C-alpha cells in the first residue's frame, strides 16, 4: 500500500523527516518496507533547450544537437526523429541513472556514461517519456512546455516534492489502508491531532429521497447503505492535482467522478461506487443476494456466475454491482452520464471475502471490506465525494443524504485492569500513564475504579474488542523498546525434561558410519507418489503436478537424489533420510485424521563401489550383503537381539531379492535391491540397494536400559568346522542346526568362509564356521570340547544333508 507524505499532511501536521517517520511507524507495527523521495528521483536530470540540430556526419538517423543546460552548452547525439531546434527537453547528464532502458526487453535501468556514438562524443541524453518512467511513449523525445527554463532540475520542473511510503499492512488493521488511518498512527507517535476536513456541500432544494428509493433486504450482509444523488454532472478529466495524487499511490486517473470515489477511498478507507442514475431501473437500489447461477457482467467486461450467497446491489429490475467487490458494466459512468448516485455502504467482512475468493476477484474495495471498514464513515465519505464532485463540476447536490442504517452500532467499551496489563507486559505502568498512552489513540476513559479503566473505543478501531487488545495498544504506545529485556527467569523443573530422541541417536550413528543425510520433498508427482503404494494422499489444490501427492515411501525421493548425483559424476553413494510418509487408511480421504496414516521412516541407501578406488585394496561394487551388514549393525546397536530378517521367496519388480525386517515380532520394513526397470526410470544403470524401516518399530525395540552381564571368569575355546552341503542349502538352516546342538555353551558363531569349486564337486558349496564355547562355571577339558563338537557335527550332518570337510 502506497502512502503519500504530502497527502498525509492534509490530515495531520508532520514535522518528522521521512526516514524518522518511517522508523517510528515501523516501531509501532506499521511496517514501512521502504520509501521513495521524489525530489531526488531525477537527480542529474535537467531541463535543456535545443539550440541547434545538425545531421550526424556518420549516421543518417542520428542528429547532433547543441543543448543549453543552463550552466553550459553540451553536444548531445540524439536518435529521436522529433528533435528540433528551439525545443525544451529533459536532459539526462552524464552519471544519471536512466529509470528505463528502451533497448532492454525488460526495460532495466542503467547508468548514463559519456559515450562516442559513431565517432562523435555525446555528453548527455535527451530522454523519452518511457525512459523517464513517465509514460509509454518510447518513439520520440518528451517535449516540454516552452516556458520551461533551461537548467531547472527536472524534479523541480515536474513539481515533485513528495515522499511515497510502501506500507506493509497487517491483516488485523484494515484502518491502515487509508491516509487518515496512517495519520492517526502518527498522532499516537507525535501527539499532534489527526482529523479529516469537514465536507461542505451546497444542497439544492430538491429532496434526494424523492429521487431514489433504497432498501436493504439482507441486513446481515449489508449493515449500512448511505447515498448521495448529484445532478448536472459534467464528465471530464479531474483536476491535475487529483490526477497526480492518485497516480502517486498507483491509481490510474479515469474521469472526475471515478477519480473522486478513488480519492475518498484512499483518504478515508471507505470504498465508494458511483452509478449512472439514469440507468438504474425505477431509480431504486435493492441490496439482496443473487439467484444461484445468475450471470452478471462486471466493470472489467467479464461475465461472472453468481451464487445464492453472493450479495448484490440491484436496481428495480436487475443486479447492478457485486456488493463490496465490483460494479457492473450496465450502470457504469460514461460519456452521457448527467446524474450520479453515490454508494457508500458497509458490508459484512466474511461475506465479501467469500465472494471475492469464489470469484477470484480481489479489488481495492474487497480488500478493505474483508478486513473491516469503519461503519460510522459511510455518511462522511458520501458527503465528501459529493463535495468534491460539486467543486469540480458545479453539479447540483440533492437535498439530504439517504442513509439506511438498520441496526445502529453501539459504541464499544472495553475495560482494562492496570495490574493485568503489567502482568502480561512485565511493566510497572500506573493507571495515569496508561490513560495518557491510550489517549493518543483516541481511546477515552468512560469510567474508572482504582484498578480498572473502562475505555470508549472509537468506531474506526473495530479490531479492539477485549482487554488483551488494549494491552497490545499499551505496549505499542509505550514502545516495545522500553519494555525491559529480562534475562532472569525461573524455570519449573517439576516435570522431567524429554531430552533423548531416537531420531537424533540414529542420525549420529549413521553419520559415524559414514552416511550422508539427505532431506527430500514430501510432495511429489503422481508417478513417484504411487511407485511404492497404490493409494496415496493427494492435495486438492496443488501448485503444480510435480508437487501434488504426498510421498508414500522415502525410496522415490532417494532415487531422485541418486539420479541427480550420478548425473553430476557422483556414483559412490551412502545416503540416509529420516522423514514422514503418508497414506490412506481406507479407500477415500476423510474429514478426520483417522482416515490417514502418517509415519516416520528411516531410509538407508548404498550404491556404487564399497570404497572408492585406492591402492592396496581391491575396490568392488556394493552388494546386498554390504547393506545387510550396515542394517544389522544399526539394529544390533539399537535393538540388540530383538530383530530378525525374514527371507522372501518372491521378488517384486520394485525391490528384487528383498528381505523383511521384524522387530519384536512385527514387520518393520524391508531391504533389497531396487528393480532394474525402476532404476532405469531414474536413469540409473548400476545396482542400488535400499532399506526402509519404520522409526516407531525401531523405537519399540530401542533398548536404553542396560544391565551389566558379568564377564566370564573362565577361558573360552574356539573351534573351526567346515561343512560341504548342496548349493541349495541355506546358511541359516546350517547355523540353526549348529546352535541347536551347541546349546548355551556355544556363545558365538561366525561364518568365515564360503567356497564353491572343483575341490568339493559340482552342485556343492562349503560353509566354514568358527565356534566359540564359553563355560560359566569351569574350564573345559579337551575331551569335553571334542564331545561337544562331535555332537554338533552329527546333528548338522543328519539334519542338513552335510558332510564335515577336513580343514
Amino acid at each position: 500500500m502506497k502512502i503519500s507524505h504530502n497527502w498525509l499532511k492534509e490530515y495531520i501536521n508532520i514535522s518528522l523527516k521521512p526516514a524518522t517517520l518511517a522508523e517510528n511507524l515501523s516501531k509501532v507495527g506499521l511496517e514501512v518496507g521502504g520509501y521513495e523521495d521524489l525530489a531526488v528521483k531525477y537527480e542529474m536530470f535537467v531541463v535543456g533547450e535545443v539550440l541547434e540540430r545538425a545531421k550526424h556526419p556518420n549516421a543518417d538517423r542520428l542528429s547532433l544537437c547543441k543543448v543549453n543546460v543552463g550552466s553550459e552548452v553540451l553536444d548531445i547525439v540524439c536518435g529521436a526523429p522529433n528533435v528540433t531546434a528551439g525545443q525544451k527537453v529533459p536532459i539526462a547528464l552524464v552519471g544519471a541513472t536512466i529509470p528505463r532502458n528502451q533497448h532492454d526487453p525488460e526495460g532495466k535501468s542503467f547508468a548514463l556514461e559519456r559515450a562516442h556514438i559513431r565517432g562523435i562524443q555525446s555528453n548527455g541524453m535527451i530522454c523519452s517519456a518511457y525512459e523517464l518512467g513517465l509514460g509509454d511513449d518510447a518513439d520520440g523525445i518528451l517535449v516540454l512546455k516552452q516556458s520551461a527554463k533551461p537548467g531547472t532540475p527536472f524534479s523541480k520542473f515536474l513539481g515533485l516534492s513528495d515522499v511515497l511510503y510502501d506500507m506493509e499492512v497487517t491483516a488485523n488493521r484494515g484502518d491502515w489502508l487509508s491516509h487518515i488511518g496512517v495519520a492517526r498512527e502518527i498522532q499516537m507517535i507525535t501527539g499532534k491531532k489527526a482529523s479529516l476536513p469537514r465536507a461542505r456541500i451546497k444542497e439544492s432544494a430538491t429532496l434526494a429521497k424523492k429521487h431514489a428509493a433504497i432498501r436493504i433486504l439482507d441486513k446481515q450482509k449489508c449493515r449500512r447503505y448511505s447515498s448521495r444523488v448529484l445532478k448536472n454532472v459534467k464528465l471530464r478529466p479531474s483536476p491535475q492535482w487529483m490526477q497526480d495524487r492518485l497516480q502517486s499511490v498507483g491509481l490510474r486517473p479515469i474521469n472526475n467522478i471515478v477519480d473522486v470515489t478513488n480519492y475518498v477511498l484512499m483518504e478515508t478507507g471507505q470504498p465508494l461506487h458511483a452509478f449512472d442514475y439514469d440507468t438504474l431501473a425505477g431509480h431504486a437500489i435493492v441490496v439482496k443476494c443473487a439467484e444461484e447461477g445468475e450471470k452478471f457482467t462486471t466493470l472489467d467486461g467479464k461475465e461472472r456466475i453468481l451464487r445464492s450467497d453472493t450479495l448484490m446491489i440491484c436496481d428495480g429490475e436487475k443486479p447492478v454491482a457485486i456488493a463490496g467487490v465490483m460494479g457492473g458494466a450496465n450502470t457504469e459512468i460514461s460519456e452521457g452520464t448527467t446524474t450520479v448516485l453515490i454508494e457508500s455502504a458497509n458490508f459484512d467482512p466474511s461475506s465479501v471475502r467469500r465472494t471475492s475468493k469464489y470469484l477470484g476477484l480481489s479489488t481495492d474495495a474487497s480488500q478493505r471490506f474483508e478486513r473491516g471498514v469503519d461503519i460510522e464513515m459511510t455518511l462522511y465519505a458520501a458527503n465528501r465525494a459529493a463535495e468534491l464532485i460539486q467543486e469540480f463540476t458545479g453539479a447540483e447536490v440533492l437535498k439530504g443524504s439517504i442513509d439506511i442504517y438498520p441496526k445502529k452500532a453501539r459504541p464499544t467499551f472495553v475495560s482494562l485492569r492496570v495490574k493485568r496489563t503489567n502482568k502480561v507486559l512485565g511493566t510497572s505502568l500506573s493507571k495515569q500513564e496508561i490513560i495518557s498512552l491510550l489517549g493518543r489513540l483516541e481511546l477515552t476513559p468512560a469510567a474508572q475504579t482504582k484498578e480498572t479503566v473502562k475505555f470508549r473505543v472509537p468506531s474506526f478501531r473495530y479490531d479492539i474488542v477485549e482487554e488483551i487488545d488494549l494491552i497490545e495498544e499499551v505496549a505499542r504506545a509505550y514502545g516495545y523498546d522500553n519494555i525491559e529485556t529480562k534475562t532472569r527467569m525461573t524455570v519449573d523443573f517439576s516435570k522431567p525434561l524429554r531430552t533423548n530422541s531416537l531420531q537424533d541417536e540414529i542420525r549420529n550413528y549413521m553419520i559415524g558410519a559414514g552416511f550422508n543425510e539427505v532431506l527430500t520433498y514430501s510432495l511429489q508427482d503422481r508417478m513417484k507418489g504411487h511407485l511404492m503404494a497404490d493409494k496415496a494422499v493427494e492435495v486438492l489444490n496443488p501448485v503444480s503436478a510435480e508437487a501434488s501427492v504426498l510421498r508414500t515411501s522415502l525410496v522415490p525421493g532417494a532415487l531422485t537424489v541418486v539420479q541427480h548425483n550420478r548425473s553430476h559424476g557422483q556414483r559412490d553413494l551412502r545416503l540416509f533420510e529420516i522423514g514422514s510418509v503418508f497414506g490412506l487408511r481406507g479407500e477415500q480421504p476423510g474429514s478426520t485424521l483417522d482416515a490417514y496414516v502418517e509415519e516416520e521412516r528411516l531410509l538407508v541407501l548404498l550404491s556404487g563401489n564399497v570404497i572408492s578406488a585406492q591402492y592396496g585394496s581391491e575396490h568392488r561394487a556394493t552388494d546386498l550383503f554390504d547393506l545387510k551388514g550396515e542394517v544389522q549393525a544399526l539394529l544390533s546397536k539399537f535393538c540388540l537381539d530383538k530383530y530378525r530378517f525374514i527371507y522372501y521367496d518372491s521378488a517384486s519388480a520394485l525391490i528384487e531379492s528383498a528381505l523383511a525386517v521384524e522387530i519384536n515380532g512385527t514387520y518393520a520394513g524391508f531391504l533389497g535391491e531396487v528393480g532394474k526397470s525402476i532404476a532405469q526410470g531414474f536413469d540409473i544403470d548400476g545396482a542400488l540397494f535400499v532399506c526402509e524401516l519404520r522409526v516407531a518399530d525401531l523405537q519399540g525395540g530401542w533398548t536404553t536400559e542396560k544391565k551389566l552381564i558379568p564377564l566370564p571368569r573362565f577361558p573360552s575355546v574356539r573351534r573351526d568346522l567346515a561343512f560341504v552341503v548342496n548349493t541349495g542349502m541355506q546358511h541359516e538352516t546350517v547355523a540353526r542346526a549348529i546352535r541347536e546342538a551347541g546349546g548355551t555353551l556355544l556363545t558365538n558363531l561366525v561364518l568365515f568362509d564360503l567356497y564353491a569349486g572343483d575341490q568339493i564337486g559340482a552342485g556343492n558349496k562349503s560353509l566354514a564356521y568358527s565356534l566359540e564355547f564359553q563355560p560359566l562355571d569351569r574350564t573345559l577339558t579337551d575331551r569335553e570340547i571334542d564331545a561337544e563338537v562331535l555332537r554338533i557335527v552329527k546333528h548338522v550332518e543328519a539334519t542338513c544333508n552335510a558332510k564335515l570337510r577336513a580343514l
Partner: protein
Amino acid sequence: MTEKINQVRVAFDIEVSKAVNVDELEQVRVKFLSRNGAIAQLFEDMKSVPVSEKPALGKLLNALKNDAQVAFDERKKTLSQSQEKPTSSIDLTLPGRPKPIGTKHPLTQTMDEIKKIFMTMGFSVATGPEIETDYYNFGALNFPPEHPARDMQDTFFIAKDVLLRTHTSPVQIRTMEQQKPPVREIMPGRVYRNEAVSARSLVSFHQIEGLCVDRGVTFSDLKGTLVAFAHQFYGKDVRFKFRPTFFPFTEPSADMYISCFLCKGKGCRMCKFVGWLEIMGSGMVHPHVLQNVGYDTEEYTGFAFGMGIERIACLRYGVDDLRLFYENDVRFLQQF
C-alpha cells in the same frame, strides 16, 4: 630497533621449524647465525643507536643470539637423529586408506543447534502430525473462519477440514491439551505453504516453534529468552529490536530483528542494505488460545515464538537458492 630484533626472532623461529632436513637447516644457519647473517647485522646496527638505549637493546640482542643458537642446535639434533635411522621400506607419504565421511544435513544441523540452545534453557522437544485438521491449524489458534489472516498462510487442502499444516503451531495446541502448565516446549518440523516454487520459496520448509506457559510469564521474559538465544546462536555482539506485528494466536505480537552479522549493521546484500535481519516472529499467547486448551487465563500467561530453518540456514551458510537443500548433491552435503 626493538621491533627489528623481534622481527628477526619471529622470522628465525618460523624458518627453523620449517626446515625438514639438515641441509635446509644449514641454510637457515647461514641466513641468521653466520658472520654475515641477520643477527650479526643487528650487532652492526647497534653501533648507531644512542648510548642511553644501548644497555637494554644489547640485552635483548644477546638473548636473541643465545636463544637462536640453542634452538638451532636442538633442531639439528632432532633432524640428524631421524636421518640416522635406516631408511624404512615403507613409503610413509602414501595416503591413508580413505573412509567415507558421514555428514548431517545442513538443515538438521541448524535445527539441532537451535534445539540444543533451548534445551539448555529447560525446553523439551515435542512433535506432531504434518496432516492436520482445520481446528488445530487455524481454529484453536484463534484464526476466525473467513478471516483475511488465513490468507497469510496459503494452504494445501487434503479434504474438508483436513490440510497440510502451514506452521508447527498445531503442536502447541496438542502439547497443551495433553499437559497442564508449566509448559516449556520447542516444536521442530516440516510445514507446507501453497506458493510457487522459486529460489526463495518452496512448497514445504522447516520451522521451530517454542512455547512457554507458566505463572508470571511476561513480555519481558519473552524478550529476555529470545535475546539470550540470539546471543548464543548469532554471537554476543549482535544488537536486537522487537517490532509490533500481527499473528492471530499471539497478542501482543513481535517480530524480532538482529543487527546483520555479516556487515555488523552497516548494510549489505544479505540484509538488503538495511543492517537488520528479521529472524523470528513471537508474542504473548492469546488468551483465546489458552482458553481453547482449558487453561485458566487469569492464572497463566505465556509466550510463543517461531522461526524458519531454511531462512536461518541460508543466512548462516550463504546459500541463496533454497532448492540446493533438497537437491542433496553430495558435494554440497559434504561441505557441512
